[in-house]
């Protein structure tokens, strides 16, 4: 990181390059306006006012960055907990969450499009080179010709709570190994497409493959919310709505029949 760059320029370049970074700003208290740029590993840049405060906020900001959270925290003048002399706004710029879509089928293009609107980095993966092409899925960030379990063996270790896997193959030959390999990761959402009959048959095969109750309970199968979706585009909305509802812990009724906060 060239030293002559301003904090804004360092932040801007990191955001563009999708390097995880957090910006801490004092918004109330003696050091109002002071800033600290916090990296996942490297030493922080700038200062909030003194080295003690910088050290405590660097620690907290790394935690917020790992979780992709943004919000306000309060400290004493030297970073003391349970004091409110200084208010620090910590803004996380985490890289976009990932969506892995297994199966280069009709539904894949629509799902990839909606996922891009929602800010996912989308990978389409299918073992069949004739279907898994960039020209069929121009909206995807990458199109990979490989077996799902092989791709997951490669990237699965990086997947976390914010990431999602959608298995659209509805062919036991592909989706059983894809489910088994997905369950071995910490990915936040695993949805598997198929009719009720496909689902029942697949569940039997998954149990034969050694998937236990806890593993089965992690799956959203059949994938999606019950909104009566028919077209690939409607199905994509049903799937992405389920992904959002899982993250927020809502049970996805109409707001008409519920009360309480809408965004909370």
């Amino acid at each position, binding site marked *: 990181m060239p030293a002559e760059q301003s904090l804004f320029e360092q932040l801007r370049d990191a955001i563009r390059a999708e390097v995880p970074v957090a910006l801490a700003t004092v918004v109330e208290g003696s050091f109002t*306006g002071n800033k600290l740029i916090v990296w996942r590993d490297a030493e922080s840049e700038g200062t909030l006012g003194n080295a003690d405060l910088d050290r405590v906020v660097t620690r907290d900001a790394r935690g917020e960055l790992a979780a992709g959270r*943004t919000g306000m925290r309060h400290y004493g003048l030297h970073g003391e907990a349970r004091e409110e002399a200084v208010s620090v706004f910590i803004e996380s710029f985490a890289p976009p969450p990932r969506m892995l879509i297994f199966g280069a089928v009709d539904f894949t293009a629509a799902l990839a499009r909606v996922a891009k609107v929602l800010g996912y980095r989308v990978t389409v993966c299918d073992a069949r080179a004739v279907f898994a092409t960039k020209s069929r899925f121009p909206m995807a960030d990458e199109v990979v010709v490989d077996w799902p379990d092989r791709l997951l063996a490669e990237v699965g270790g990086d997947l976390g709570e914010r990431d999602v896997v959608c298995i659209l193959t509805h062919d036991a030959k592909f989706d059983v190994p894809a489910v088994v390999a997905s369950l071995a990761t910490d990915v936040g959402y695993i949805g598997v497409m198929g009719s009720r009959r496909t689902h029942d048959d697949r569940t039997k095969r998954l149990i034969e493959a050694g998937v236990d109750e806890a593993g089965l309970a992690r799956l959203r199968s059949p994938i999606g919310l019950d909104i009566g979706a028919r077209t690939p585009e409607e199905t994509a909305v049903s799937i992405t709505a389920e992904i959002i509802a899982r993250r927020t812990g809502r049970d996805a009724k109409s707001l008409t029949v519920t009360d309480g906060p809408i965004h909370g």
Partner: protein
Amino acid sequence: MKELLDDLDRWRGAGRAVAMARVVDLEGSAPRAAGAAMAVTEDGEVSGSVSGGCVEGAVVVEALDVLAKGERRMVTFGYSDDEAFEVGLTCGGTIHLFIEPLDW
């Protein structure tokens, strides 16, 4: 802030003074999450938003004042009832904005 970067670059490159307003805290039902940002140039050009369109006009006024005085500040917008015609959020929530010159 990500969606503002192109405009910020362009404005900075042209040597225009810019103020940035960020949602840093909120209570109750508010349309945009913490981190929502809006930038205002000294001659009143605007990028981004911090609410559903309810308070942006007032934020421009505050941002120009921040640029004129060169001082950073917190500004709070809450609920305003229809009869008062005051600037506020119709959704009933409260948002706290930090507004500062982009001089860092």
